[in-house]
């Protein structure tokens, strides 16, 4: 396989051809992505399940109303990491998931090691202030979360009354708290990722952030139980374990995630390359064993029940889910025993799926990968990137022109003079640096737009290249045209990394930022995508995932890696 940073391994299993970047990297398809077993939460859970660490709640200074501080420490691959959690009163009128919020129900740091009381006092002074606090390199992530207005108090009330929560409500929300930001990699003075990414267990993308969110989930479950018990010790009942497992952590996500995919092209390539290589390996399986077939059949059934429980208010997404339900029924009918017995069933299914919607096609990609852990899980080791895009100054202008045509040909025909093709601009607001999207011809600020107009910049580069001696070097060209450095590095990188570029115009009317958000979130492992607008989405993380003691002391037969597309089973 072709992954930057890593050489191809001679003993790689056979694989079918990769899907073309011109197909994979379109926004509409990326915006139909589903989590796979390579997703970052899944690979973390597999590591934890292999190591079976105990999560130690060493500090629990929480009052009867649920306010105070707590510390959870876990050992991962030889290092200790501690979630330091602060739960604080919040005026309901201040509760907003927007970046411009100034206060939250809870706030967190993932601390490197075990904090002392001095560390805790320092963090207590800073963390509830979030971006306005001061941090050190011992602080690996910074996060905050708000209580679900719909579910948090309902669960507390029910448990205090001695009853379990309403299952329909629990299933429809799916979480007790929603994170509204999980910052990492040097933001606001916290540790750069390079400080710890060489440690065992921490190389995977967003590993520290994923660990943080899993620990937050455990904290929210402890918190509702604590408040309910303190409110009514005589009648309190603990939350049913089945329901606990189905509660994940919500996340409200806006435009901040979208530019990440553009500003990290090699990383994006490596994520997609791992997934596409996994698919290609699975498609090359000529005769699956009986166990894989059985597992696949069960997963089809689970996928159908998961989708049946996926309900959103958004009209467009509701329509897509309805189509998905119909097409999954069609799939179920198609993949009967004799159909699966014929050679290369997974390859045939991927080809067959082209008659269905993009949602169904991409769900099938995740579905056929899922039963093949032995074949594909190693690919998750290739998803990080330690390098940054760089310019090859020795290349000739002629070669660069060829690369532009080859990898950005789709961008050259866009008419940016047409206002519909340049109607939007991405920017950072001075208000808490909130990422926003503006209407170029109606709002001020376009002169300060962020460089997400990659297609337009490459088109401008192509114009300049056409007026330059083809034998000229890129170094010489850029000495005279420094304004094109950005576009040159995009082109040269895309020529080496086929999945590094989103192949759509990101400033035109046709760009829906939620497609970019969903693409990224699916790699995290999120599910139950719930669009709130064309640029704002809610999701659930870790729904169905192992709880703390599922990891440390699993029940006999418990499968820590079997929570793809979770379903709330009846009692």
């Amino acid at each position: 396989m072709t992954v930057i940073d890593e050489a191809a391994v001679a003993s790689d299993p056979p694989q079918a051809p990769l899907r073309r970047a011109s197909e994979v990297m379109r926004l509409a398809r990326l915006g139909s992505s589903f989590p796979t077993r390579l997703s970052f939460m899944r690979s973390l859970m597999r590591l934890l399940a292999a190591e079976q660490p105990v999560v130690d709640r060493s500090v629990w200074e929480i009052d009867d109303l649920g306010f105070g501080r707590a510390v959870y420490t876990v050992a991962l691959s030889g290092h200790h990491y501690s979630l330091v959690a602060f739960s604080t009163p919040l005026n309901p009128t201040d509760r907003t998931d927007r970046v411009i919020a100034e206060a939250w129900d809870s706030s967190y740091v993932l601390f490197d090691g075990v904090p002392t009381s001095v560390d805790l006092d320092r963090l207590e002074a800073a963390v509830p202030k979030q971006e306005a606090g001061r941090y050190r390199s011992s602080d690996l992530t910074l996060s905050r979360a708000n209580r679900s207005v719909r579910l948090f108090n309902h669960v507390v009330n029910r448990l205090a009354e001695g009853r379990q929560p309403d299952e329909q409500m629990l299933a429809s929300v799916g979480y007790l708290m929603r994170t509204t930001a999980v910052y990492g990699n040097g933001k606001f003075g916290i540790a750069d990722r390079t400080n710890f990414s060489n440690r065992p267990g921490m190389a995977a993308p967003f590993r520290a952030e994923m660990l943080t969110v899993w620990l937050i989930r455990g904290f929210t479950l402890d918190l509702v139980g604590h408040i309910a018990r303190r409110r009514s010790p005589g009648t309190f009942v603990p939350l049913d374990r089945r329901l606990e497992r189905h509660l994940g952590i919500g996340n409200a996500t806006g435009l901040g995630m979208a530019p990440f995919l553009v500003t990290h092209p090699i990383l994006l390539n490596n994520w997609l390359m791992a997934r596409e290589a996994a698919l290609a390996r699975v498609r090359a399986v000529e005769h699956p064993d009986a166990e894989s077939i059985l597992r696949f059949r069960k997963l089809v059934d689970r996928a159908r029940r998961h989708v049946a429980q996926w309900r959103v208010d958004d009209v467009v997404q509701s329509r897509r889910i309805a189509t998905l339900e119909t097409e999954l029924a069609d799939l179920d009918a198609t993949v009967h025993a004799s159909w699966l017995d014929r050679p290369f069933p997974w390859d045939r299914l991927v080809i067959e799926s082209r008659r269905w919607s993009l949602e169904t096609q991409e769900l099938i990609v995740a579905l056929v990968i899922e039963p093949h852990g032995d074949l594909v899980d190693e690919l998750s080791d290739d998803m990080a990137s330690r390098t940054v895009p760089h310019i090859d100054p020795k290349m000739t202008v002629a070669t660069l022109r060829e690369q532009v045509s080859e990898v950005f040909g789709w961008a050259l025909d866009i008419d940016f003079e047409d206002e519909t093709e340049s109607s939007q601009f991405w920017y950072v607001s001075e208000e808490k640096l909130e990422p926003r999207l503006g209407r170029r011809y109606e709002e001020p600020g376009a002169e300060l737009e962020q460089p997400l107009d990659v297609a337009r910049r490459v088109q401008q580069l192509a114009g300049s290249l056409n007026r330059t001696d083809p034998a000229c070097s890129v170094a010489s060209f850029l000495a005279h045209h420094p304004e094109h450095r950005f576009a040159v590095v995009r082109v040269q990188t895309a020529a080496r990394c086929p999945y590094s570029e989103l192949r759509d115009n990101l400033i035109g009317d046709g760009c829906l930022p939620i497609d970019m958000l969903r693409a990224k979130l699916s790699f995290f492992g999120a599910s139950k995508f719930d669009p709130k607008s064309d640029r704002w989405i809610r999701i659930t993380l870790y729904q169905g995932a192992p709880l703390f003691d599922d990891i440390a002391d699993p029940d006999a037969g418990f499968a820590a890696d079997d929570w793809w597309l979770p379903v709330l089973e009846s009692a």
Partner: protein
Amino acid sequence: MLKKAAVGLGFPVGLATDVAAAGVWLSTQGLDGVEAVLAGIGQGFVPDFGWDADGPVIHLCEAAIGRCGVSLFELLATGEVEVAVVEDADSPLLLIGLAGVVARATGVGFELSAGIGSPIAVTANAVRSPEELGGSLIGRSIRIVAADGAGGEAHADTAPIVGIEVAEPQWALVSELAARTNVPATDLSRRAGAGALLDDND
């Protein structure tokens, strides 16, 4: 922040990226990358390269390193230019940082000499005699040549920065310049720009 600061001063984003990378590279060497970048971008972006080519030799006078430094090293790396002579560089230290950035991208190392002592050798991950840097080059004519095959590992891992000290005035300046890239808030922007209501929650 350094990249944003350079963009705030009018630098094209690609150039700003390399200048900021040079600041980071210097910091990994224990050098003052922030001060080096601020000195090298302080004049703002000048479109003209300002070189005087004489065959394989380039002369740069009153050199604006933020503008021309990276191209200088790239031209040396290609072999199109054999010698670069830089006079009155506004940020000699940034020159070294950019040498490191280009060495990392190309695997070609560089030697900088100012007529005193031994040349300063820059590779992808190191600069020799860092304690002599900066002061030894200020106000001098700096002669630069490529040291092919001595650049170290191209695309090498980025060295970690556990934390760097930045003087308060420097940080205030970087923040002020970076803030120039942010769009002033309006009611419309606040209401519609993020795609969520002001009181979005559930």
